[in-house]
């Protein structure tokens, strides 16, 4: 049983949460422009990292808010909790992620950044929406 630190509610059992898979996969900015391969990437292809993995969780029986975890998929250790829209804490310290300057928010946000109310994030969130999509729409 994972013990997950919800940014709003504190530590709760895993059974209160739902898993949302890989984080930082934005909806394509121009879906009609994608070819079949790119559309398949968006729909069906996700990173399957062995090691530190950024993923979304929903506190479905608590505050019903989405947030992100950085979790090791081998040890299952939770390394960071951070808000939707914020950059991955283990990469935020480095230069901004290369690649696109997408302004698309994560697909599950409403377009506005969740406030950084998490005291557990290892790095402060930068402005939302500047996170480069990870592994998506290559």
């Amino acid at each position, binding site marked *: 049983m994972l013990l997950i630190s919800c940014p709003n509610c504190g530590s709760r059992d*895993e059974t209160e949460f739902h898993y949302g*898979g890989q984080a930082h996969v934005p909806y394509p900015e121009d879906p009609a422009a994608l070819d079949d391969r790119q*559309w398949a990437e968006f729909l*069906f*292809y996700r990173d*399957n990292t062995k090691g530190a993995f950024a993923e979304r969780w929903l506190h479905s029986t608590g505050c019903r808010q989405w947030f992100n975890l950085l979790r090791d998929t081998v040890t*299952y250790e939770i390394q960071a909790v951070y808000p939707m829209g914020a950059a991955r804490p283990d990469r935020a310290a480095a230069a901004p992620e290369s690649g696109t300057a997408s302004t698309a928010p994560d697909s599950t946000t409403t377009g506005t950044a969740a406030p950084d109310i998490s005291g557990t994030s290892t790095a402060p969130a930068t402005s939302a929406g500047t996170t480069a999509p990870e592994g998506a729409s290559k």
Partner: protein
Amino acid sequence: MADLLPEHPDFLWHNPDPQKSYDAVIVGGGGHGLATAYFLAKNHGMTNIAVLEKGWLAGGNMARNTTIIRSNYLWDESAAIYEHALKLWEILPEELEYDFLFSQRGVMNLAHTLGDVRESMRRVGANKLNGVDAEWLDPQQVKELCPILNISDNIRYPVMGATYQPRAGIAKHDHVAWAFARKCDELGVDIIQNCEVTGFLKDGNRVVGVKTNRGTISTEKVGLCAAGHSSVLAEMAGFRLPIQSHPLQALVSELHEPVHPTVVMSNHVHVYVSQAHKGELVMGAGVDSYNGYGQRGSFHVIEHQMAAAVELFPIFARAHVLRTWGGIVDTTLDASPIIGTTPVDNMFVNCGWGTGGFKGTPAAGLTFAHTIATGTPHDLNKPFALERFETGALIDEHGAAAVAH
């Protein structure tokens, strides 16, 4: 006390050092890798081949599954490949000259809701049209076949009937691996344990070798049979797979007198139970929700499946959990496997079997060997190509396959 210990039985395979070069290398020495090597040697005359296993032979999911074999899948493509597998299971003990205790004791898939009943009857019809043995049982017939099942209506999800496949059953999983390994060894295949692949050598877009912790091996062709670690290997080779690896747990009780004559699966309350030849009750259920490579999961998943088992089988209430364990299953979004070519020339992949790979072992081996040897898929695995995620020709066996994956 002074008596000598009995002689060690003959080893079933050798442990050769890797050669510098092979005609083909199979990565992964589980059931699928061994079956692939066997059919490469037997059907295609390719005997200068090696199976590389990073741990010990058949120590991954082949050692961790609940050994259920059935072919009652909904869609034509699935019914064809799983039924072919079942037909191979029926002849393999003789062909491999090894009695691995394949027991066709039948598999029952329970229905607990009106939706279940309709889906089950539809699947029975589809199975019959595809030549798969299937029948619909009412609760009384369920009780006759499996007297320890609780069919009363005072439980949360009463049994409203079941589908039944009489030719389905279980086999002794480790013996299956040993049977394939022995035959591979006899045919000249090198089975190399403790040999972990660390990278691939490519000439342009063509794979020409495998880097391992025991040296570099050049090869014409590479077949990946690494289940939960398929994505890790694909990344080394420079392509992606639409796979998510999840922990899947199972458990056994202590040994009991034979009480459970068949295999019972319930999608709705979600547990599947059989009784192994030795007498343990063997149970499994669904995957843990999160991605994981840890070969272990969360306890609430075990608790949930045991609650379901005790409601269906009140007699199990006083049994004890002897052992629980987890494997890493490679799930796809349409709950069907991927068997075919990859974006890298001369590299082939067999993965995505998710929670149901054991039953498919012989057909995976047969079709994957054909694909590797000829460079083109067998008719049975043509629909299971990686390209289906781009064309949209998915084979959606979620739920339709009689168990939630």
